[in-house]
């Protein structure tokens, strides 16, 4: 497949693998966090761990919007969807995300809620257009990449003068979460693992550009390399991080220069800032409350805000106390260190955030990588 196979070439991968082995200092270890679920998925699907030396370890970050959505928000959506006048439009990934007490949108749909899976925000607007007697709510979720399409949809609804359309907004932001991972006091109770650098987001950075990470690299003294989602992108980004660490640099470097610029997509950023504003704080599954990390609709667009329109009450649900997602997201623990992993918590019946989507650290390890645990056990 053109434009994809070039970035999955085995020979080049072996060359990069050799270079990483040659340049990584055997006297020290390297711990890099890939923020995005897309990166986590690529690492697992292509078996990248097999191509890295033992002292270069990848820590899987919280960059999977489905995974970090708190159970309370799912409960809120279910409660709304059970109203007979509502059609709730969602992306397919959300259907199985667990709310409290084993509830999910999939189960609510089976019980009669009118929940429709859509592939694009445009579909939600079309459904609203076709069902003028019903209230159509779009369950908006995602990082900076998925926010502009929601903004475009609201513009479209405005243009079409749709009276029956609104958005349940769960959009979140990347930089505040990265910052939270490094500086939150929560870390001290969990313990911490020193992170030596970040593989920065791919698609998110096409929107926000590389500039927002500059403060971060400077302030925390951590190198950031923006990387594409293809396996060769990642291998190259890891090599670039190893070099920065070896040379005691902490800069923002852009491996994904074929798509990402310093300033990002100005038009998209403008659309988003026209319609959305920051929430004071937003809850992330596994991280807790993170200040200024979520978006809501501006007051001038309040009529499209489902939370206001339907008087939705904020619901809070505590995660299973045995769930180690918080520690796993911060790199303190690995999926296998969690008692629930692979026992009661599997992709079929996820308990914690990391098992929810195939981009979550636990789900990726379970689905693609768990044979390594048995290999290690056998070896030792």
């Amino acid at each position: 497949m053109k434009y994809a196979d070039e970035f999955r070439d085995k020979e080049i991968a072996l060359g990069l693998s050799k270079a990483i082995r040659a340049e990584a200092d055997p006297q020290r270890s390297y711990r890099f966090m890939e923020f995005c679920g897309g990166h986590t998925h690529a690492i697992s699907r292509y078996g990248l761990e097999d191509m890295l030396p033992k002292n270069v370890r990848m820590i899987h970050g919280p960059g999977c919007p489905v995974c970090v959505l708190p159970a309370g928000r799912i409960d809120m959506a279910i409660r709304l969807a059970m109203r007979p006048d509502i059609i709730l439009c969602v992306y397919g990934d959300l259907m199985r995300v667990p709310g409290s007490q084993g509830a999910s949108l999939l189960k609510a749909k089976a019980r009669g809620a009118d929940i429709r899976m859509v592939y694009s925000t445009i579909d939600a607007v079309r459904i609203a257009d076709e069902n003028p007697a019903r209230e159509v709510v779009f369950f908006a979720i995602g990082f900076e990449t998925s926010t502009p399409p929601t903004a475009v949809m609201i513009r479209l609804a405005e243009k079409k003068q749709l009276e029956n359309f609104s958005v349940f907004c769960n959009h979140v932001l990347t930089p505040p979460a990265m910052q939270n991972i490094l500086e939150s006091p929560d870390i001290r109770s969990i313990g911490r693992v020193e992170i030596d650098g970040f593989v920065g987001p791919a698609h998110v950075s096409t929107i926000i550009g590389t500039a927002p990470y500059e403060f971060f690299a400077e302030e925390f003294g951590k190198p950031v390399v923006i990387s594409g989602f293809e396996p060769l992108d990642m291998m190259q980004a890891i090599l670039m991080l190893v070099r920065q660490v070896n040379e005691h640099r902490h800069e923002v470097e852009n491996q994904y220069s074929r798509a990402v610029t310093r300033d990002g997509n100005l038009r998209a950023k403008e659309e988003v800032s026209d319609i959305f504003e920051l929430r004071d704080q937003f809850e992330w599954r596994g991280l807790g409350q993170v200040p200024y990390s979520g978006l809501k609709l501006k007051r001038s667009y309040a009529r499209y805000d489902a939370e206001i329109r339907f008087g939705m009450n904020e619901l809070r649900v505590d995660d299973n106390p045995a769930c180690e997602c918080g520690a796993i997201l911060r790199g303190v623990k690995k999926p296998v260190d969690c008692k629930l992993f692979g026992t009661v918590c599997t992709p079929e019946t996820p308990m914690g955030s990391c098992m929810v989507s195939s981009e979550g650290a636990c789900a990726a390890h379970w689905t693609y990588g768990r044979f390594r645990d048995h290999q290690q056990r056998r070896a030792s």
Partner: protein
Amino acid sequence: MKSYQRKLDIRNGCVDLSHGSGGRAMAQLISGLFHEAFGNEWLARGNDQSAFDVPAGRMVMTTDGYVVSPLFFPGGNIGSLAVHGTVNDIAMAGARPLYLSASFIIEEGFRFSDLKTIADAMGEAARAAGVHIITGDTKVVERGKADGLFISTAGVGVVPDGLDLSAEKARVGDRVLISGTLGDHGVAIMSKRQNLAFETEIVSDSASLHDLVAKMVAAGGKGIRLMRDPTRGGLAATLNEVAQQSGLGFGLQEEAIPVKPGVAAACELLGLDPLYVANEGKLVAIVSPEVADTVLAAMRAHPLGHDAADIGEAVADDHHFVQMATSFGGGRIVDWLSGEQLPRIC
């Protein structure tokens, strides 16, 4: 039973509740549309059942339901699919398919012309496979209760003497053969789904595999341990199933697995993995290493096995993992599918 007041208006008419009521309208639908399409001596007798002679040997029986959406897709429709699917379930035992039944649950308002296209496709697929649809049933339900049309089938066939294909026969070192490219059917269907329509030249691989199977059995005999058709859940589901049933594991080579570029591209776009996408005209065979090359050559000589490939082997594994060496150079598991295979959102 010949003199109806008016002929069935196939071009403009549609099914209504009277066509399922057991009265004259139903008789007219059955004789005017289904008998016409399936045309055989058993149906012509008009009995509630059909009697047939049983050949010597062991028989196999299977049943299947068809609820595909959309009903018409590139490379076939629900009718041809129903015949192919049933024939293939029989053929995977190494058996020669003989007779099918077909029962139709039709929504009122369904157009006769569409029903005729579907029934004709069934008749054609049955004739091509050398099987007869010898008994059937028609029910009509209210609008909105059947998404157009559901078909359910049963089929019987006869297994050649001495052949007993089954998962527990698999042994460590056996080869895994696949008869062609993966994911064609699933991608063809998805390309026509509402909300998701995209342009592709991919057509469904829906086809009857019994003849390919016969050639393989002739070439490999008892060296063939088992065969499966990787339909829902794709190759991944099939091999995990066999791993569980046989108590073995599998080791695959991603580079050896044939996937059409158009299918790979569509999967890339939708966030799907071709290993999990449905096929309707492909089979997986686990064969002893001694006959693997002979069987593979026989497959490649057949029009439905042109792209056949040896993609891996059975290995000893207490965990019954299906593992794969990725073409990138790493290793991974090919696990069961969890839930529906839905596109990732970012």
